[in-house]
């Protein structure tokens, strides 16, 4: 139930070479953090793991299946078992929170159930339980555009919790949250993965969060893997090399406050149209 990448390389349509020669093998139930400078290829790597980007080279095996070798219906079933928390919450602003959370199981529900849920939410209790773990239960019937950026990110997280995937992926899930909330949220993801025994891969901008919460840390630099080590063995020298281009380690704080400008710069523009 884990996954493996062998010699995976990917070039975007605009000619940018995002990944090269990635070899990565992760066992079921492992919890891994991806760290690296902005633009290093963390998002692309996660999207390959989510079976939403097809790499140009190499072999991908996910949850004991080869996504790009199977029929469309089988690929759809495979994707329904993978949950990806996006960096910018992909939620329509005018949608209600309950609908946004329930959308997590569209891949598992038959079509009639999805359609019925648009008229009357079929499982409000389930959505509420997922939101309650993120301290948002009372916003169940609110519209998403009434929420702050951090709250929307938590709604997106609740959607993936509700999906109950076998492979839990998260792309900078805490970029719009303050340090205390980031800490709580990352703990929650880890707890969820441990409790259900599923694999967790999260990319994080803040190095200290990654080192504190994840047993295994993978450093990505310029589309390739720089190191792949247990958290305790990640040395300062390696980190300095990893972030050589950024001139300093990005930290979430907890001990020291983050520079607000940096967090703001990382914040994706929220669509409010």
């Amino acid at each position, binding site marked *: 139930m884990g996954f493996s990448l062998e010699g995976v390389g990917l070039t975007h349509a605009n000619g940018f070479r995002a990944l090269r020669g990635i070899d990565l093998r992760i066992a079921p139930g492992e919890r891994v953090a991806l760290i690296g400078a902005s633009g290093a290829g963390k998002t692309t790597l996660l999207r390959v793991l989510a079976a939403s980007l097809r790499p140009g080279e190499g072999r991908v095996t996910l949850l004991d299946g080869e996504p790009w070798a199977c029929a469309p219906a089988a690929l*759809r079933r495979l994707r329904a078992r993978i949950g990806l928390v*996006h960096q910018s919450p*992909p939620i*329509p602003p*005018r949608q209600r929170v309950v609908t946004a959370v329930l*959308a997590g199981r*569209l891949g598992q529900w038959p*079509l009639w159930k*999805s359609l019925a849920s*648009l008229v009357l939410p079929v499982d409000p209790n389930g959505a509420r339980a997922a939101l309650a773990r993120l301290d948002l239960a009372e916003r169940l019937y609110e519209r998403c555009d009434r929420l702050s950026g951090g709250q929307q990110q938590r709604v997106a997280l609740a959607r993936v919790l509700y999906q109950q995937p076998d492979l839990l992926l998260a792309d900078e899930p805490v970029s719009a949250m303050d340090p205390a909330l980031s800490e709580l949220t990352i703990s929650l993801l880890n707890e969820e993965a441990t409790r259900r025994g599923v694999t967790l891969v999260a990319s994080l901008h803040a190095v200290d969060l990654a080192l504190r919460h994840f047993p295994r840390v993978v450093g990505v630099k310029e589309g390739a893997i720089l190191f792949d080590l247990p958290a305790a063995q990640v040395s300062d020298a390696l980190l300095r090399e990893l972030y050589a281009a950024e001139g300093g380690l990005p930290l979430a704080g907890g001990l020291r406050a983050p520079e607000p400008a940096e967090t703001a710069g990382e914040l994706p523009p929220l669509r409010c149209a």
Partner: protein
Amino acid sequence: MRAGVSFGGLLAVVLVIAAVAGSFAYLDMPLGALFAGAAAGEIVDFVGRFFPPELGPAFLAKVGWAALETLAISLVSTVLAAVAGAVLALPAAGRHGVAGQVAARFVLNLLRSVPELVWATLMVLAAGLGPFAGTLALALHTTGVLGRLFAEALENTPPAPAEALAGSGAPSLAAFLYGTFPLVAAQWLAYALYRWEMNIRMAAILGFVGAGGLGALLYFSLSLFHEAEASTVILAMLAMAVAVDGASAWLRRASA
């Protein structure tokens, strides 16, 4: 920037003047006769026959019924067109490949380019005289207009929400309804309401070719030289248009 009048601008002005003069000359408009004494008297006489409007209860009931019919034609046709337009807008926005896009755009352009009145004459043949033909005719033309507007709205919509859902295995219809539809719904509704405002005016006219509603009544009244009745019908048309404008503005505000 060049100073003064450019050669192109001058040429355009000359061309426009020539086109206008040519048009009037070609049409041989009796503009002079219009303002000659006898004709002017005739016109005053003609206008005078419209007053006062016919307000007998029997005729008012007839006008009320026709007005209801007109309202029904405009509403039903707009709803039909909104549904059909949405169905055609998906391929027209390029969601089902290039071949689908070209085909859908062709159909939408064809529906849109043929005026409502022409559709109405065709539909009177296909469905017989009466409001149903008018409904179909308006629905066909409006489908073309709304389909194009809907498709443009779709093209300007961020694809990320629907892609995220499809990425977690949602079927494409569910991904559209949960990820894209909430983004375009308000705009689609605004477009549909705007078309409804146009359609109430068109629905009043379609009766001229036998498609029911106020137009039929106006046509008969004028054919029988009952100008007082005609002026009541025209007043009813004006009132309907104003009422629908108000309702549409209210709905738009309520849904925003």
